[in-house]
């Protein structure tokens, strides 16, 4: 069974990859690629349902065992099922579903974003206590310079701050970011190749 899953995965991967490069020589590869990607999208949709089922299973299990925080699990399961069945009955385009999205989910995410800004400020204050090295000092100085350069300062106008901030973000930070992204891209390429060759198998068991 393991050999079959590896074979299917490797052949599918190679066919999709070939579809990007060799369609000039073998036009049929474009159709095969589209077909396989469509299957993948359908499977992702099914996986979403399985994922939700997993979420419900984990939380109902917590409620049954009366674990710490099971009250929140009960709220989650209740509203998850409620929203699911409401969506099935009313259809997602219905106004009430819009209210659920715009009146609950988006404000909650915005609130989490607000919480995040406090967390980040707190982390910046504690950074030197946690890691007192040169990199932390540079990190804090750069963050402060960029923030001061972006903000409108009361009573004073210091164009040098704006110029320094722009130079940091558009030259130093951009160069560094590109370097990191090239490294990440190379790492992704190698990981992809290992999966493609069946060396790493995040599927089909041992």
């Amino acid at each position, binding site marked *: 069974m393991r050999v079959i899953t590896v074979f299917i995965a490797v052949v599918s991967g190679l066919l999709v990859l070939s579809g990007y490069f060799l369609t000039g020589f073998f036009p049929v590869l474009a159709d095969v690629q589209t077909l396989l990607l469509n299957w993948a999208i359908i499977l992702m949709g099914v996986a979403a*349902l399985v994922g939700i089922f997993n979420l419900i299973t984990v939380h109902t299990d917590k409620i049954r065992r009366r674990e710490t925080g099971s009250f929140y699990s009960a709220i989650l399961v209740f509203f998850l099922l409620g929203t699911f069945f409401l969506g099935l009955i009313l259809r997602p385009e219905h106004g009430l579903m819009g209210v659920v999205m715009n009146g609950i989910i988006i404000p909650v995410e915005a609130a989490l974003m607000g919480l995040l800004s406090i967390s980040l400020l707190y982390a910046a204050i504690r950074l030197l206590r946690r890691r007192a090295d040169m990199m932390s000092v540079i990190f804090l100085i750069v963050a402060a310079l960029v923030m001061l350069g972006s903000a409108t300062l009361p009573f004073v106008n210091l164009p040098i701050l704006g110029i320094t901030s722009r130079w940091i973000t558009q030259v130093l930070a951009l160069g560094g970011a590109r370097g990191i992204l090239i490294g990440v891209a190379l790492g992704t390429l190698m*990981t992809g190749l290992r999966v493609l060759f069946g060396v790493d198998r995040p599927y089909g068991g041992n």
Partner: protein
Amino acid sequence: MIELIILVVSAFLLLVITIWKRKSPAKIREIAALTNLHRVLGLSVEDGTRMHVSLGSGSLLNARGGSALAGLAMLRHITEQTSVSDKPSVASAGDSALGLLAQDTLQAGYQAAGVEELYIPTTGRVTGLGPFGYAAGAMNISKNENVSANIMVGRFGPEVALLTDTSDRDHVIAIGASDDLAGQSVLFANTPDILIGEELFAMGAYLGAGVSHAASLTVQDILRWLVILALLGGAFAKFAGII
């Protein structure tokens, strides 16, 4: 055509260097976060606490799936190491397909350790769909399930601060790696142990996941030098008016 050449050359190098590395093992520099990860793995088994592997909310259908796959490779290794612990490791994902693969990887780890009967399917979880939903659900695991270490490997944006903040308040050791720049900077400010850039993809080699992982590092280094030479060559050619 250039992309195909890069791909073929990379694949060829990976194959050759993997065979070569079988004969002469790799020497790799020390990365503090990964040394600490080794220590944390041992400690969690000894003191009967749980490890939480957060795989992020990256989808496998886009170009950022690489970090999720790297996270799964690490999860497999951690599962093998902690499978006999009183408290099994928990993996959380913010994408359904990634959640399914996490369950499969956990099961494979137990199989490899010869204790498949100890595998509990609910240790692989989808805690929410989308970055903030995922973070909110994963925070709950660190807080309520006797977790001693939170290993975050995958696609994390700024929302990772919520996870690291919870870990900090509950005295849970946090080790993080993300392929997202905003996530990396947040992790730098929030955690003592962070992996920057491509170090995320080096975890397998450091944890002894196999020769191919060490070979991947060497190929990455070779490709990086080629990119540097191409950049310098391009700059020189532009300066000299050739292009």
